[in-house]
């Protein structure tokens, strides 16, 4: 770290390129905090939205019309409204309605960002899962039923494993979108990567440098997700299916 810090200091002195996050410990800790919060926000929303999305897709195929309608309504509401409006809605409209605990709001801006982005991404994930479920041939379900599988077993052991494979490329897309959408949390002052970077550039007046850092940071995060999903896709690939 010492060498790197010295080199960036030298770079600043000789060329004027000012990357304080590499040699100013305060800026570095702010930047890393932002980076960590973006990862945290992404990871929470990723896991929660996949679970909620799978449940919603399952409910969309319920035998009861009321449940089907409710699930569809949820998907339509969150798919057809702007993400920023949703975020503001939760933070400014729903937030103040909740009771306070010891004078503090029940959910902070980070909490609301997780709730809002999870619901948004779950709506998209549900649509993707639903398409995957519909792509499983009816004959496969008939075969499983004829072997004595119960409805739940057919879904869990045959439909879901096949649907997952079909949905992998679309799901990767959705996860990439999720990471990029976390920057909206800036608007409600969640100390994520964009927010912290903005703090740094407004103090250090190194806007172009920080923009480049930001772009590279997101390329790295999204690259890791892409790589992981591709490896998963290869591992789950079976000959003669979905190709």
């Amino acid at each position, binding site marked *: 770290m010492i060498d790197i810090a010295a080199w960036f200091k030298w770079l600043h002195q000789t060329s004027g390129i000012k990357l304080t996050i590499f040699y100013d410990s305060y800026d570095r800790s702010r930047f890393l905090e932002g980076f960590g919060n973006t990862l945290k926000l992404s990871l929470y929303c990723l896991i929660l939205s996949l679970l909620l999305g799978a449940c919603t897709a399952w409910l969309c195929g319920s035998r009861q019309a009321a449940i089907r309608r409710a699930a569809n309504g949820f998907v339509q509401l969150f798919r057809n409204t702007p993400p920023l409006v949703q975020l503001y809605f939760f933070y400014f409209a729903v937030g103040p309605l909740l009771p306070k605990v010891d004078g503090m709001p029940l959910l902070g801006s980070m909490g609301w960002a997780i709730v809002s982005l999870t619901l948004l991404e779950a709506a998209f994930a549900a649509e993707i899962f639903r398409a995957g479920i519909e792509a499983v041939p009816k004959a496969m379900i008939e075969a499983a039923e004829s*072997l*004595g*599988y119960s409805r739940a077993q057919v879904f869990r052991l045959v439909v879901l494993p*096949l649907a997952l494979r079909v949905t992998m490329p679309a799901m990767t897309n959705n996860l990439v979108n999720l990471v990029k959408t976390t920057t909206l949390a800036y608007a409600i002052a969640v100390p994520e990567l964009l927010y912290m970077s903005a703090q740094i550039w407004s103090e250090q007046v190194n806007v172009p440098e920080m923009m480049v850092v930001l772009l590279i940071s997101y390329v790295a995060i999204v690259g890791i997700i892409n790589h992981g999903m591709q490896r998963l896709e290869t591992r789950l690939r079976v000959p003669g299916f979905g190709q």
Partner: protein
Amino acid sequence: MSDAGPGAAGAPIVRIVDLHKSFGAVEVLRGISLAVNKGEAVCVIGPSGSGKSTLLRCINGLIPVDRGEVYVGAHAVHTLHRDQEMIALRKDVSIVFQQYNLFPHKTALENIMMAPIQVLGQPRDEVEARAHELLKKVRLAGKESSYPGELSGGQQQRVAIARALAMRPSVMLFDEVTAALDPETRKEVLVTIRQLVDEGMTSILVTHEMAFAREIAHHIYFTDHGVIVEDGPPAEFFGNPRKERTRAFLEQVS
């Protein structure tokens, strides 16, 4: 394959009385009656769209019955509504489909092992040993770890037969199992089925293979437009058909 099933005393193991089934306005089955004794092989033949596949699916409850009675062993299929009762029936009756319908994400061996473990709750090592035996029986030893996508149609169909047998059913249903196969692979599947019939497996086969039906069936049913036009032992049925409609059909397919 239990020896003391309800059909052991000469009573039919599958009995269908005046079965009716419609899809919307289309009457597919219009009063079918038939009986199959334990150990018998019965072939159902007839032109496409005459309701043969629907008939098979009514026997294992994949399609609900509109009217009439269907008995399989101790199960009165037409009275079953609860999922649990249906599952109990399907443990007794296995079906092999025209399009094989193997699970593409499981190997040949896993396809055979899945239901005995997950549905019947049998111990894994016992099921695995049986699955190896069954693969040998359908002459596919060595293909244990192949995925369905890596097997030919005929091989997939033989895995499907092994998968059905792994449940140790008392009745096997075959739904045009060679219709999607080319002549060479067709033969290997037919050899497998003949072996089963010779061993005394109660079988109901919907087929277009006239020569095969004549050779292995104990009884032939000819259906057209949702009714049984004529039935009888193969020698009589093929040698001396009584009905004009039967003669016309047999002339067309031979």
